[in-house]
């Protein structure tokens, strides 16, 4: 079929285009189209309603969350528990008044005769104490009291040192309690090595008498 024949055919068929649906079919199709349009509009109204409700619920919900969070924050500030002083001095770690008054410590350990195991002696009132006797007679200071004497920057530092001192001093105290003085001294030296910031005295006996010295000096 050439172009001319095609155009002729097209013209002929275009002239014949008088066919159409029956009127009843027309009416039916239009009615169904209107029904569908009404359904679509109803669905859109419903979606819009849900959207509005969801928005208002979301804003109310977020407001409620904000108010609750603010209330909890305020309440937490009002009911804050004051910092507890752990390991506070107990009666067992304090010295009686009479012993605190006149005690001096012999620090020149090197000058002691050999064989005495560097046992510093303490002159208190009318008697000398041997090293073992010092450990037996005088109680170890509390970790908190020790920490108070140190020059620490923050309370976090203080807390960390108190924690490491408390377990070591508990061990040492237990060893002294069963007469294991050398083990106690060795344990103390390990503590000193592990806690360079603690500024602890050279010997366990000096530590024992620390609480008798004025605060600020170890």
């Amino acid at each position, binding site marked *: 079929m050439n172009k001319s*024949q095609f155009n002729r*055919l097209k013209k002929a068929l275009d002239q*014949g285009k008088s066919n159409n649906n029956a009127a009843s079919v027309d009416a039916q199709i239009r009615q169904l189209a209107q029904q*569908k*349009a009404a359904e679509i509009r109803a669905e859109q109204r419903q979606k819009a309603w849900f959207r509005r409700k969801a928005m208002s619920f979301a804003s109310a919900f977020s407001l409620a969350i904000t108010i609750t969070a603010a209330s909890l924050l305020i309440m937490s500030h009002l009911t804050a528990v004051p910092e507890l002083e752990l390991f506070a001095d107990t009666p067992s770690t304090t010295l009686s008044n009479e012993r605190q008054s006149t005690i001096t410590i012999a620090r020149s350990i090197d000058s002691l005769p050999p064989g005495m195991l560097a046992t510093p002696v303490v002159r208190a009132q009318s008697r000398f104490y041997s090293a073992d006797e010092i450990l037996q007679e005088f109680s170890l200071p509390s970790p908190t009291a020790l920490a108070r004497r140190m020059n620490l920057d923050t309370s976090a530092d203080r807390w960390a040192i108190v924690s490491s001192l408390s377990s070591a001093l508990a061990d040492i105290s237990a060893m002294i309690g069963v007469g294991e003085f050398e083990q106690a001294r060795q344990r103390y030296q390990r503590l000193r090595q592990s806690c360079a910031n603690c500024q602890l005295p050279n010997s366990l006996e000096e530590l024992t008498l620390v609480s008798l010295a004025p605060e600020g000096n170890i």
Partner: protein
Amino acid sequence: MSDETLMRLYGRGEAKAFDVLYQRYKGRLYTFLYRLCGDHAIAEELAQDAWLAVIRQATNYQVTAKFNTWLFRIAHYRLVDYWRKFGSNATVIMEELSEQALRSRDRATEGLELQELVEMLRCLPPNQIETLLLKIEGFGREEIAEITRAKPETVKSRLRYASKQLRAAMEMRA
């Protein structure tokens, strides 16, 4: 307003947009179906099915193809289903052209040309007549391919084959 805009408006619930579209295409669609199935009642039924499909798909309509391509594609599917069940009957075109040829008695040449075209069309299978009619409706090769779900090369082949058959028929008559 374009067909696609009208269809989108209908998808949002504007019933009047559908009325405009329906008015634009109801005649063309019906005539196309009637020429390929040969029966008024069948053509009405097929056309009604096609329009109902358009109504049902209103909210899903995507502007990926032109509205008329989409509409005729729906009609094509209905037609193919009908041909499968009842066979094709494209004699309507022949009758239409023959009637016109007779009316063109006074213009002899014109009448003869139409008669020749009728004879040519008788040789063609239904899918080729459909392709031809879609071309007459103004669809391009790509659009015809989309409507008939064929490849553009297949559409080209059909049109070329139709021309070849028609030429052969003419030579035989001569």
